[in-house]
């Protein structure tokens, strides 16, 4: 069964932002909340929503957890609610991907212990961002503009296909930044595990089928590389 539905729990500005971003990428998402006022706000934006009690396991199952739901965003404002939902969902479906918000360092650890796959601490990230703006205003402004707000350049991961022009080559021979307007950041070498390895860490990796390339560049250039990789030599 395809597991591509996404549930977003909670109701606040972050939920709406995430839902908006995901919808742009054409994901099938549903917001789950019991907040009447919030539901009214969502209705205007034409996003699916369900008014369901998250503490009830049967209700969670009826939402599709354990069946076609692949990802859960647990974005409650309260850490305790996030922990509860994480534990309930992982109980029903241990393979489900759970991304949650945390309000403090302390609760990040608890959420991870409860089984969350990715814990986002918005304040930590924003705080660090502010600090970057203070320390290096020009750089952070440029990166912010180019990478995030105007989407002039993108990051992408590209899987090496069997028999493509990079299959079996060493990183040093790839010459990506000369042939494409791209910068290669690093690879995930499946022989060595799922860890991301920075390109300049010293070893000249040999690229094999199913390794991941992480590149930065304009969307067209990324697409060009993807096309070239998809055509076997």
């Amino acid at each position, binding site marked *: 069964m395809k597991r591509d539905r996404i549930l977003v729990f909670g109701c606040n500005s972050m939920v709406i*932002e995430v839902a908006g971003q995901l919808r742009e990428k054409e994901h099938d998402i549903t917001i789950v909340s019991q907040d009447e006022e919030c539901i009214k706000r969502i209705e205007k934006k034409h996003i699916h929503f369900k008014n369901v009690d998250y503490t009830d396991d049967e209700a969670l199952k009826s939402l599709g957890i354990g069946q076609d739901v692949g990802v859960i965003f647990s974005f409650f404002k309260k850490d305790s609610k996030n922990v509860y939902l994480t534990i309930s969902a992982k109980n029903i479906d241990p393979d489900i991907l759970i991304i949650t918000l945390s*309000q403090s360092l302390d609760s990040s650890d608890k959420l991870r212990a409860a089984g969350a796959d990715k814990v986002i601490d918005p304040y930590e990230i924003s705080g660090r961002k502010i600090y970057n703006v203070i320390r290096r205003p020009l750089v952070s402004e440029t990166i912010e503009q180019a990478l995030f707000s105007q989407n002039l350049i993108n*990051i992408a991961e590209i899987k090496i296909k069997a028999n493509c022009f990079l299959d079996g080559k060493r990183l040093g021979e790839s010459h990506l930044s000369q042939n494409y307007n791209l910068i290669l950041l690093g690879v995930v070498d499946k022989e060595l595990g799922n860890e991301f390895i920075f390109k300049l860490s010293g070893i000249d990796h040999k690229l094999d089928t199913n390794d991941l390339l992480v590149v930065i560049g304009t969307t067209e250039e990324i697409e060009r590389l993807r096309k070239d990789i998809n055509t076997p030599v």
Partner: protein
Amino acid sequence: MSISSSIIQFCYKLDDSERYKRIKGFFYDLIDNPRSRLRPYFDVAMITLVVSSVYLIIYEVRHDLGLFGEIFEWFAVTVFLIEYLLRLWLYSPSHRIIIEQYEKDEFIGKPFSIWKALKKVLAAKWEYMTQPLAIIDLLAIIPSYRPLRFLRLFLLFRLFKLFRYVHSYNKFIQVLSEKRFEFYTISIFILFILFTSATAIFFFEAREDGGEIVTFFDGLYWSLITLTTVGYGDITPQTTEGRVITMILVICGVAVMAFITSIIVSSFNEKMEELRENSVFAELEKKKVKHTILCGFGRMGSVVADYLKEEKKHFVIIESEPINVARAKRAGFLVIEGSAENSDLLKSAGIKEHAEMILCLTGNDVVNVYITLTARYLNPDIEIISRANQKDSVKKLQQAGANHTVAPFKVVGLIAAEFIGQPVAFEAIHDILSGKNDISLETVTVKNKSILDGIQIGEVNFLANKLELFGVITTTKRNKKCVNKPFIFKYNHFYFNPNNDFILQAGDIILVIGHQYSIIHFKDQLALGKL
């Protein structure tokens, strides 16, 4: 007439003289200016002199110091006298008073009278001499004059001189004077009790043979000793009536003392915040470097504060929530309790001159917009970074004058969306941007006439230094046929992944990705002139 005109000429000359101003400024900094750096040294020296001179006076009571004592006393008195005269001189600018009087008279066409002007000068000086601290100063000097030796006791007034050099005393007096009404009430009450009990005890005891209270003064003395709960016991009531009065008086005494103590304690409690704030401001002003104002010490504020501390930046926090204030104090930060919406508070936090940056990080967008607007209005040059909690606020904050806005919801949205599609890539860029695992995006500035200035970027061997070239930020547009077009922003151009024949110019900023050691090494090499 000739005397007065030459005096006026002299006054104008003084008013014009740079040297005179400089000298006066120096002495003002030395003895009067509360913000000068010199003054603390002067204060400490004077305190030492006062204490040692008083110590010698005490020592002299039983010992003979001979010539040394004499010389020291002369030295102390001379210093005190000079100080007194300097303060008298600094108190009012006499030449200005004369000039003003002269110009006023000229203006209305009256003949100028030098006596009238001199009278004004003297009145100003007299005003100084009658101030309590000035009187104390004088009393510390006069008894040393031989014919007035009988006034030697007043030499102890030198101790009062210490008030001048210890600045918290006026806070103390200020705090107590705010409770004038309470003290007034309690002192009337005390006087009433003292008088009544003294009369009563005198009435009962003095008639008795063998009673210890003989005069009315004895009664008064006994009442005060009993009321203040000191109770020496040198005079005790002998009659039953007298003892009953004692019992009542003792209870009154306990009540009175408790009342006075509570007045003092409560007035200090009320004032403590203000005193502490004053010390915060003083600490801010002492520092030479500019500081940052951080409004809001919530979760985000504390993260930023930790980073600022790590970077050893000076900053002051403004926070209205008492719990957060307490948390900030525990962490050892400078905090002002209050709302940053209050422009007076912002002013005293130094927004006009001492601050270079203000961060509005409260959880309330209305407050953030308001602070941003106030800050921009108070200081057009200050750097403002604001937090936007709602999507619509970003624009409003920029309109209000924020240089940068940071939106937590946006960052989260981005991360969440990317995490689903390409988790590895996103984690990677996130780590690099935040400098995790020691790999980060760093900058190298092309300095004027440095080795990088004017060369093609292809000549720089980034790979050998284990660095990855990311891009170049320039302030000017390069009129070269660049295959890779730049991204043009408001203030600068960003050349992503530039071609090898891109020519570097002074002022360009090169962005490289690499391990922090590689970057340090690369910068070292550049400083040595190697590529």
